[in-house]
């Protein structure tokens, strides 16, 4: 097991937050100074999901997005590549782009008309020569660019740290799992309309759960499963046997985690209750994945996952990002994604299934929200911040040095999520790119 992290940041001792064996100080979810440091050390140098490429089908299209708590503009530039920059005019700070989505080749600030191109480069200042009488250096005074952009299976990621590893390196040994979750024949497309919520809970409640927590399902979602069973006597989406689930938990030393179904019949039972959907997922789609990634594709059917720090997904048709909004709230954006080549009937079925289960009003989603919000609210007390949370599930079993694959529920993934978090939180930014 990794060494415990002992560094101090500010007056906060990480040892007080995260103990070796698996306990976690609840102040990590409420402390304003921890939250402030996260902006620099987590969100300032991690790969963060911005949007789906299908929103930017041609040059001149743009969307606005959010990286941690910072607003950015994401564009398809004239050379067909995607660029992103901070949505803040360098003159007095008004947003450069006021719209959430649209078509534009340049962006003019509403205050004094500074104009930036689709890469955020300062193009012009009205009457600059006569008014400024001093050189306004384009390199100094362009919008802050997001220096690193990568696209993988349609998902557009950005990173503020010029020295960061590549996205593939960042994903590390979890890369295959990422690919199996998001690759599809012909790629994917996102539905129009980002489902956004401001939820009164720290972002880590969401990210950690999506990484690792398959064992809350039978409890938290009991009413949802019963409801589906009641209206569908043949039983769709029944919960697995909690003690012997056909599932494996993946956990990575880089903080990523996933629960996947590890055999085909179980996956068919889980995802293929609707035969139209099953035919696609386990027919053309699986054929494509097997041809590309080999036979192992028949043993990895992703269910829930989080790629560190905050890109969560519920396979096979949703991806979401858990952005902080102060220490006690998260702002989370969820995209519905469907396989581009899937028949329309499959796309419709997936959309309808998603809204009923994990949409903003989904019968599963609402109970997750409830738990997170109530846990956060409880932390407004004082006694409630004095004793650690328990993250010990599965501590007794051997833990691999590298990628972990747990055949039964365990919190090893949560421990790794928090340890990765502590590693970044205690490493100074100046130390160069982090691994």
């Amino acid at each position, binding site marked *: 097991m990794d060494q415990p992290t002992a560094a101090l940041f500010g007056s906060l001792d990480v040892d007080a937050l995260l103990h070796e064996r698996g306990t976690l100080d609840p102040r990590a979810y409420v402390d304003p100074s921890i939250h402030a440091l996260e902006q620099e050390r987590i969100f300032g140098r991690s790969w963060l999901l911005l949007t789906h490429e299908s929103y930017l089908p041609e040059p001149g299209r743009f969307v606005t997005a959010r990286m941690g708590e910072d607003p950015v503009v994401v564009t398809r530039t004239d050379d067909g590549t995607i660029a992103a920059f901070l949505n803040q005019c360098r003159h007095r700070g008004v947003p450069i782009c006021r719209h959430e989505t649209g078509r534009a080749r340049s962006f003019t600030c509403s205050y004094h008309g500074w104009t930036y191109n689709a890469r955020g480069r300062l193009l012009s200042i009205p009457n600059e020569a006569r008014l400024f009488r001093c050189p306004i250096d384009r390199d100094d005074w362009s919008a802050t660019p997001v220096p690193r952009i990568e696209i993988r299976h349609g998902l557009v990621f950005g990173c503020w740290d010029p020295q960061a590893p590549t996205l593939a390196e960042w994903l590390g040994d979890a890369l295959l799992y990422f690919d199996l979750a998001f690759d599809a024949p012909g790629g994917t497309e996102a539905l129009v309309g980002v489902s956004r919520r401001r939820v009164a809970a720290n972002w880590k409640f969401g990210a950690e759960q999506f990484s690792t927590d398959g064992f809350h399902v039978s409890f938290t979602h009991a*009413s949802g499963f019963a409801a589906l069973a009641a209206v569908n006597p043949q039983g769709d989406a029944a919960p697995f046997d909690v003690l012997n689930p056909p599932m494996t938990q993946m956990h990575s030393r880089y903080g990523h985690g996933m629960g996947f179904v590890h055999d085909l019949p179980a996956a068919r039972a889980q995802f293929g209750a609707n035969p139209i959907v099953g035919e696609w997922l386990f027919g053309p789609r699986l054929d494509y994945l097997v041809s590309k990634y080999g036979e192992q594709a028949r043993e990895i059917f992703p269910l829930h996952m989080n790629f560190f720090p905050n890109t969560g997904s519920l396979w096979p048709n949703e991806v979401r990002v858990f952005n902080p909004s102060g220490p006690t709230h998260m702002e989370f954006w969820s995209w519905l994604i469907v396989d581009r080549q899937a028949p329309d009937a499959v796309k419709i079925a997936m959309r309808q299934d998603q809204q009923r289960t994990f949409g903003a009003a989904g019968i599963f989603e609402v109970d997750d929200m409830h738990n997170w919000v109530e846990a956060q609210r409880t932390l407004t007390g004082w006694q409630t911040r004095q004793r650690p949370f328990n993250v010990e599930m599965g501590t007794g079993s051997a833990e691999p040095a590298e990628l972990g694959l747990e055949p039964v529920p365990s919190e090893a993934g949560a421990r790794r999520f928090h340890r990765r978090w502590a590693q970044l939180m205690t490493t100074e930014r100046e130390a160069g790119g982090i691994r």
Partner: protein
Amino acid sequence: MNTPRSPFAVDPALQAEIEQFLYHEAALLDEGCFEQWLSLMTPDIEYRMPVTQPALARGQRPIEGTRAMHFEDDHRGLRARVHRLGSKAAWSDQPPPLTRRSITNVRVEPGDDNSLRVRSNFVLYIVRRSAQVDLLAGTREDTLRRVEGSLAIARRSTHLDQQMILANPLSMLF
């Protein structure tokens, strides 16, 4: 004033009847009578709430493509929701929030043969955990049908005036 009625003149009896129907429906939701509420829906009910998009700026064309949905239910979908709300394990709703629906600006137009097209606004006040107050507003377009001497909802399309949902968890029916 005996001047002739304007284009805004309506049949007051029909107007009052539809309003009473909508008030009755709202009260069933506020009082937690979800099964009774469900009985006001036709078997072929279409119940939808698209994800709210930003209002379009002057001169912008809407972005093409399929809309994401907060709700897109048929009768079976609503039955599932109502079943869950009746469960002791529906954590977000046990204890239930206090809710109060004010239905306003009801506008009725005749629809196809047996149906009415009814638009209305709503203000929904929600209190959870004794002190978490949320307020939602929006507008709805319903298709009502006369069924066996009474009225039923055959279609409801709700526009919620929040792009960023603040009233979480969004476990209410609309």
